């Protein structure tokens, strides 16, 4: 049994709360309402988001870890949570000024922010918007895998 034939990924969950409004500047009022329904209500609404990240890498024999959790937590805090938690995604996050803050787009935005984590390879971002729906992005779009 060769341990090198195995791949181990580290998974970590974070929580943040934020509001959003689904509204596209490229659609009319009526179209926006038809497409987004109550998610288009003008003052927005919020969710308790659960962010899950998976990272791969070699397990350092000295620590038994793919990445030190303190490093990972600090990186996610600085690059995502500080800016997103208890905020309006539409108003407070520049990336969503002109992009609809669906959880699909949120996954992609967070993937881009976390893929530069220096100690392990980001494999997957998964976001639970509510207990009933979740979204995943593995960087599989052109240019996302460096």
């Amino acid at each position, binding site marked *: 049994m060769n341990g090198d034939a195995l*791949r181990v990924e580290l998974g970590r969950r974070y929580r943040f709360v934020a509001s959003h409004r689904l509204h596209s500047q490229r659609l009319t009022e009526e179209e926006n309402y038809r497409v987004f329904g109550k998610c288009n209500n003008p003052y927005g609404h919020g969710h308790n988001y659960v962010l899950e990240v998976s990272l791969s890498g070699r397990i350092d024999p000295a*620590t038994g870890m793919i990445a030190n959790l303190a490093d990972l937590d600090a990186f996610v805090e600085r690059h995502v949570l500080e800016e997103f938690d208890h905020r309006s995604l539409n108003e407070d996050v520049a990336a969503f000024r002109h992009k609809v803050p669906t959880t699909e787009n949120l996954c992609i935005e967070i993937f881009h922010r976390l893929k530069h984590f220096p100690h392990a*390879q980001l494999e997957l971002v998964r976001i639970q918007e509510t207990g009933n729906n979740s979204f995943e992005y593995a960087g599989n779009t052109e240019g996302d895998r460096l």
Partner: protein
Amino acid sequence: MVLLTRKIEFSASHFYHNPNLSAEENRRIFGKCNNPHGHGHNYTLEVTVAGEPDPVTGMVLDLKELKEILESEVMKRMDHRHLNYEVPELAGQIPTCENIARVIWQLLEPRITQGKLHRVRLYESPDLFADCYRNGASGAGN
């Protein structure tokens, strides 16, 4: 191909300490996980097996059999044990989620003869887990 997952829970204690490092380095790297008398977790293990359903039974493998394998390979070894002292497969390794998941994979893979072991996911807490796959099998990231 169908994936089938069985979940079990066990409780165990551990601490993180590398004897090749100084006390200060151990403290810096492992934080309170370095406390010498250890601490414990309720671990949740999810074992996923991939295969085609048998045309007669409709099953990838008999869940009763999987349950027995998990009982003998994991529960007997790890449940209500101290992972640093009582699990020989972990000797010389820091008993992190990553290492325990890999050891569980190595224990289970040869025992699963119907279907193929696809993923071992071990939760140390609801917010921290490790996944183990055989390289080349599709994981979360590809």
